[in-house]
């Protein structure tokens, strides 16, 4: 299993050809209380850096971008009933969607955990 991070504060866990995507703890902390998550439909094709999901706090809506090219294979239905999961367990139960990848080599362009930690500390 490989865990990677994007500069847009998403985490990507890649295992058996499927990438699970969510937002990082840093992201949920800066967004605040999350009240709604709009997820893409299963089967939707995603383009790296294109719109993938929308996360809404009390105050504002924020776009979540696709970290990689690929296609949605599963979404986290739990978030509809309980969007606060993103605040409570952003890098576990609060995952957003799973996607198949068009080009696994794109993973190499993302940061590993140590690099992301450094990136966040520099913000």
């Amino acid at each position, binding site marked *: 299993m490989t865990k990677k991070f994007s500069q847009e504060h998403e985490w990507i866990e890649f295992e058996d050809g499927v990438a699970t995507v969510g937002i990082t703890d840093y992201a949920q902390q800066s967004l*605040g*209380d999350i*009240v*709604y998550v*709009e997820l893409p439909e299963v089967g939707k094709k995603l383009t790296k850096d294109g719109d993938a999901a*929308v996360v*809404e*706090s*009390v*105050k*504002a*809506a924020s776009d979540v971008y696709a970290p990689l090219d690929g296609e949605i294979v599963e979404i986290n239905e739990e978030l*509809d009933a309980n*969007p606060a999961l993103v605040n409570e367990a952003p890098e576990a139960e609060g995952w957003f969607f799973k996607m198949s990848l068009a080009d696994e080599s794109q993973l190499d362009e993302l940061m590993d955990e140590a690099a992301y930690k450094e990136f966040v500390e520099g913000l």
Partner: protein
Amino acid sequence: MDQQTELLQTALYDLHVELGAKMVPFAGYAMPVQYPLGVKGEHLHTRAKAGLFDVSHMGQVRLTGENRVAELEKLVPGDIAILKPGRTRYSAFTQDDGTILDDLMITNAGDSLFLVINAACKDDDIVHMRANLGDGVSLEEIDDRALLALQGPDAAKVLARFAPAVADLKFMSFAEIEIAGSPCFVTRSGYTGEDGFEISVPNADAEALARKLLAEEEVEAIGLGARDSLRLEAGLCLYGNDIDTTTTPVEGDLNWIINKRRRAEGGFKGADVILDQLENGADRKRVGIKPEGKAPAREHTQILNSDGEEIGEITSGGFGPTIDGPIAMGYVAIEFSEPGTKIDLMVRGKARPAEVVELPFAPHRYFRG
């Protein structure tokens, strides 16, 4: 960082930072948008107990001189002459075209009128007043006072520990009261729909007073984020969003601020337009909007009728923590303004069902004695 240093600071700036607030630029000031409790927690706490808000960025103005009432009445549609000493009224500065330059609170403080105006408008308002208030009125900007708001069902109980006299004040009443040894102007009013007070306190005493209030177990510090969600649930207008220089009081569903004598006599800026709209109706109206489902619809969201035609726009929209769902306000063409009317909201390219509803979303709980 440069931007931060150029921003104005209220007397409570250091306290906000110490409390861990996230500071943001707002109307030229560095203001706390939220504290570690978070917008939702702060919102719910205010409705359950009491919240302390720093609203010192708002403008405080005193008008003196024997013509103050008649002169101010030229700029607002409210009956100020009827306002007894110690009473407060919500009003608006109107313009010649009937639109709104700002909304404000006007208090008859006995020997003067005490006004509270919006932070983002205060410079314009003061220019407007200086240009239009005639002889026999002097205007003093009160810049040596902070403004705190203590809001929520426990606000009166908490404040009475420091100043028992506040218990006697009724909603929209004013008194000069010493709180914890400091001479304050206290109005029983607010911007949350809850019982509460706005307290004008000398800058030098503001931090000490805020600390005393925050030390009470019922009180939490509340930021601008929750201030916005609280006022939206209460159906209260945010100037710049829900009313502005493109909307009249009648369109804004603020007919009640145009008092009886002023309807008969006119004599305020834009009276011809506004009184004509009162008589014949306006083409559009501000309404409450409840989106179905969970997706919030934000300001500038297009409103459509069932045929997909645009009939208006959302002016404030978000999530109401007390309602536990999305809420909004906006303008719709008058034929769609009846509560119960089904409408669609265009959110991210998709028409989503919603309904026109009565305001407020959360019932007002003012203390009327």
